[in-house]
């Protein structure tokens, strides 16, 4: 089910590759291994996940290569637009739940992306204006957009951290300047973990983040899964992504995604497709997202 990442590692512009890991594979226990992380080059000749997603959501911060990649993938997987929008809608409902019912006031949003409507701090601060949100992205230009557009309410606060998800030590150190890690924090990893290949041990990354926050904290994840796409479609998609995109993907099964939530209790309805997580309206469409999600509460 998991795509091989080795071949992609040699491609031009690949910022997130397994070959950057030290050969002994030794991560420091806190995961703060900055040597594995290289800044993303500014390259508009290939599709960039953040800009690709921006185009799917109707934004204008994208380039020809991003749009071409969307077009190419749409031909193979027409539910892509639905998937992107359903994932974005899940963000809204999950953050509303966390700020509302769960009473969370601190958010660590990793993989911010290009700002669009209904960003994490806007949703959280609409419920609780004093909410504090740290946005993390590994692309300095995406982060510049976030700084320019994601400005906090007066009662709350937003901060921006330029770091790779693999560099958890750096993320936690910088986020700690705004967030109080002795109080519950919601860690949101939406549509980002599938950009981490198995060779970079995404389970250890998530475990490190969860270790840093107290009991009663929350973890929200959405992650591309292979179950609803035929093997043929999957192969065609992987081939297209390899040819057109800066970042490569590792899809994970429902069971594999569930393992990220070790040490947490899943909030009902558990691990489901993004469109089925506490939907606002009963859905009647036939489109399916292929994106797993859940929200778990740390024991």
């Amino acid at each position: 089910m998991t795509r091989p990442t080795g071949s992609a590692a040699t491609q031009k512009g690949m910022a997130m590759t397994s070959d950057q890991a030290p050969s002994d594979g030794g991560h420091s226990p806190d995961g703060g291994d900055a040597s594995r992380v290289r800044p993303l080059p500014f390259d508009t000749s290939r599709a960039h996940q953040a800009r690709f997603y921006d185009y799917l959501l109707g934004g204008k911060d994208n380039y020809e290569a991003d749009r071409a990649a969307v077009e190419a993938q749409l031909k193979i997987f027409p539910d892509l637009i639905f998937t992107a929008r359903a994932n974005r809608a899940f963000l809204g409902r999950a953050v509303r739940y966390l700020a509302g019912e769960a009473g969370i006031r601190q958010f660590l949003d990793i993989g911010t992306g290009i700002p669009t409507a209904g960003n994490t701090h806007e949703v959280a601060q609409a419920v609780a204006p004093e909410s504090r949100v740290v946005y993390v992205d590994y692309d300095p230009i995406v982060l510049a957009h976030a700084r320019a557009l994601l400005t906090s309410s007066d009662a709350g606060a937003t901060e921006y951290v330029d770091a790779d998800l693999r560099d958890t030590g750096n993320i936690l150190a910088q986020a700690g300047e705004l967030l109080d890690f002795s109080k519950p924090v919601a860690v949101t990893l939406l549509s980002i973990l599938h950009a981490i290949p198995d060779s970079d041990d995404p389970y250890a990354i998530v475990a490190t983040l969860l270790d840093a926050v107290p009991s009663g904290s929350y973890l929200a994840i959405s992650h591309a899964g292979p179950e609803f796409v035929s093997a043929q479609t999957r192969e065609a998609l992987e081939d297209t992504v390899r040819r057109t995109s800066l970042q490569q993907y590792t899809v994970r099964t429902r069971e594999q995604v569930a393992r990220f939530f070790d040490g947490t209790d899943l909030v009902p309805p558990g691990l489901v497709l993004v469109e089925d997580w506490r939907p606002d309206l009963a859905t009647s469409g036939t489109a399916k997202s292929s994106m797993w999600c859940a929200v778990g509460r740390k024991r």
Partner: protein
Amino acid sequence: MSASEQRLNTVVPGSEQPDPDDAPAEGIVLRLLLGTQLRRLREAAGISPEQAGAVIRATRSKISRLETGRVGFKARDVDDLLTLYGVTDDQLRSRFLFLAKQANRPDWWTRYGDLLPDWFETYLGLESAATTIRSFEIQFVHGLFQTEDYARAVTLLGHRSASPDEIEQRVAVRLKRQDLLTRPAPPRIWLVLDEAVLRRPVGGPAVMRAQLRQLVEVAALPQVTVQVVPFARGGHAGAGGSFTILRFAERDLPDLVYIEQLTSAVYLEQRPDVEHYLEVADQLSGAALTPAATALFIEQVVKET
């Protein structure tokens, strides 16, 4: 347009106009919207600008000016063009005609018409209709952020022989533009400045210090972002000169790049051109100091001015 682009961009003219209380839909932006739609229809029908021009007794360049919102449409011309482009749906036709009528409303700056060249009037309209203004400046503080004294000093530089009355009127236009900072639903303004802008004491040190303090104040507004590219960062992607990118709420409207020259201005709206400038703007904002560091930097420059 590909099938999926149609799915992503399904806009019927007139159906998605912003609420007039939210964001004023200026005549210019309506003309631009109308022109963009008509160009798409023309291209989809495989009709050249010359052919279109022949039908409404106009030249190729007139068609180009119409399609880029520079001039208003006569209802009869829109009617003839729609027929030529094979648009037969009555409802659609009447929406186009309504838009053409709306697009011919006068705008606030027309009363300064004698003073302002046409190209600048056009810019004022686009600026007040934009939802996002992204600008890079290498020489002067952006017009939207100028103090009255700084604006006067800049105006004097450009119009040495103008009468005091004319200078004051020009300054008044500049300050009037700033109304959009405080209106309801103001546009997002994202400004990147070369350090040279901060160091050139236009109007003298006292005027400059006041200007720099105002810059810090305006930068603190929630919808405003200011970033400085310090000299210490070396060369940068924007070395070619100042430019402004305007973005509009309408899904169907492309971004516009505006470049002011001494006696005229250039608008770029073809996608490859616009994307080149978007790339430069992206690179500059990545290379510049963060907004928080910029505020500290400007305060330091005030002390040194």
